[in-house]
């Protein structure tokens, strides 16, 4: 039995963390993640959170403390955003290459400069190759459900990797909506306590961890890390099914498809813009346009076979990126999708959209315009060579 509650995205993340019973939490506040830390501190003060909450002076320390705690066998949780993640980069990479199953929500915020506190997944997408699993979600229920699942995925002996569940700052972190919260007993059964077996800091069983390592062994480490990334794709799907059996909610695993069965055109999305795109798929379908939606949930590992299969029968597609890949002149997800298609040997017309940077709203009107552009470009067999910018005209700004 679950409880129906009303909460913002940050509260959903904190609630999921509490239900997962991490033994150690270390987090440093940064907008828009700050309320996650406040809620967890409140839970600890109320006595409803059993975790050890560690006060830290920076994100670098937060991840370093969790790395030590994870090595000692603790289930670990933290959350951060943008500049905090940037400051954490050094222990961030080390946590994944040490194979520490730490769970971290990233409350996506634009990277500066110019100074911005608003949403955009540039922060985590830029770190997509640092060895963490990264999953992106579209609403508050999915934040809660996926954050709970993250512990099980990360700690699976076939995976043993840290994981980020990423959600858009403000559009989700500060958005309030209905969320179903599972019972503690249900989650306890879903998430048995973490038992570290691969490496343990224990004075009774001394073990040297992370000594200076020659290139030959580094290569072995990287190969095994990559293998476990590949295994993680299957574990993400399995975990989604197990969670659906428990709660009735499946989020689709690595990808979620909407009205793709007979689609001639597709839009590929990531994060909170997905909801507006679903709405617009229905509108365009009602007007006779056979368009469908592919939501990328798992960005690392990238479900390349599933993406190629999802797009196997469309005439062309567009990708809405709320981020940029400097030098490619498109967004990041666009490049990922195109690479996946290259492996399948298909060349399709495609449109790289960039919009919603720095918390700019990707309105239904802009989504509609993007869909029309996908249809026009695909019908003409045209692939723009650089991003099509989704933005509303504004006085004094040259579009």
């Amino acid at each position, binding site marked *: 039995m679950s409880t129906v509650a009303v909460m913002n995205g940050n509260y959903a993340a904190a609630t999921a963390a509490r239900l997962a019973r991490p033994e150690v939490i270390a987090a440093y506040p940064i907008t828009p993640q700050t309320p996650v830390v406040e809620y967890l501190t409140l839970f600890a003060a109320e006595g409803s959170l059993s975790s050890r909450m560690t006060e830290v002076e920076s994100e670098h320390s937060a991840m370093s403390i969790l790395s030590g705690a994870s090595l000692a066998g603790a289930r670990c949780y933290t959350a951060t955003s943008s500049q905090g993640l940037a400051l954490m980069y050094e222990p961030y990479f080390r946590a994944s290459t040490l194979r520490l199953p730490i769970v971290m929500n990233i409350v996506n915020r634009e990277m500066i400069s110019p100074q911005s506190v608003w949403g955009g997944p540039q922060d985590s997408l830029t770190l997509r190759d640092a060895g963490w699993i990264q999953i992106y979600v579209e609403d508050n229920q999915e934040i809660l459900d996926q954050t709970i699942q993250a512990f099980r995925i990360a700690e699976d002996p076939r995976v043993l990797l840290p994981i980020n569940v990423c959600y*858009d700052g403000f559009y989700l972190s500060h958005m309030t*909506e*209905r969320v179903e919260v599972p019972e503690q007993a249900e989650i306890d059964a879903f998430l048995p306590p973490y038992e570290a077996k691969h490496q343990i800091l224990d004075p009774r069983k001394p073990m040297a961890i992370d000594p200076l390592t020659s290139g030959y062994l580094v290569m072995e480490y990287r190969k095994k890390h990559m293998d476990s990334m590949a295994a993680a794709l299957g574990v993400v799907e399995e975990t989604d099914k197990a969670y659906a059996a428990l709660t009735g909610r499946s989020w689709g695993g690595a990808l979620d498809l909407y009205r793709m069965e007979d689609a001639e055109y597709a839009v590929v999305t990531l994060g909170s813009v997905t909801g507006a795109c679903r709405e617009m798929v229905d509108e365009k379908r009602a007007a006779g346009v056979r368009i469908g939606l592919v939501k990328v949930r798992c960005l690392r590992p990238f479900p390349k076979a599933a993406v190629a299969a999802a797009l196997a029968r469309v005439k062309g597609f567009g990708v809405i990126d709320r981020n940029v890949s400097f030098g490619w002149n498109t967004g990041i997800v666009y490049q990922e999708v195109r690479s996946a298609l290259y492996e399948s040997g298909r060349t399709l017309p495609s449109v790289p959209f960039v919009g919603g940077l720095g918390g700019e709203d990707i309105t239904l009107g802009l989504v509609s315009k993007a869909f029309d552009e996908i249809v026009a470009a695909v019908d003409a067999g045209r692939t723009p060579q650089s991003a099509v910018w989704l933005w509303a005209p504004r006085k004094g700004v040259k579009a």
Partner: protein
Amino acid sequence: MKEIRLHGRGGMGTVKAAEIIVTAKVLEGGYGNSIPFFGFERQGAPVSSFVRLDERPIRPKTQVYTPDCVIVLDGTLRKAVDVFEGLKDGGWLILNSEPGSRVEDLDLPRSVGTVVLVDATGLALRRLGKPITNTAMLGAFVKGTGWVELSDVASKVEEFWGRENADLLGEAFEAAQVIRLR
């Protein structure tokens, strides 16, 4: 679906008021979401919050551009922000206004179909000793639109801020003046 835009200033509880409307709707078995827009966070700065209410799950996580209703928690905001921007034809205006305000002196655009006037500042000052107008404005909103039940709003107001605010809510509901312009 009903869309609402709230205009307030940092410190007035604009965002919390929006959340209470959503919570009341969910308590009644419906769906809702609210998204705040802070701009630069500081006391006194203009704040907006966007609310959607429906009988089925709400997918767009975007701001509201064509509200059915605007709630203005501080009348002086009309000098700084176009509070009527995008208001649907025949829409609702819930306005914090000075006692004795006359609708013909308010210089309203033609889109407004129903005005609800309440001296939220005065009521809040008398009961709470501070000009925090969100509770009183919720009372006026419920009276004018009926989109959520007063009792559900009251139970949440009491849970968050206590008995005094719940009483203020009821008082504002009684005092609010609903004027249909067409």
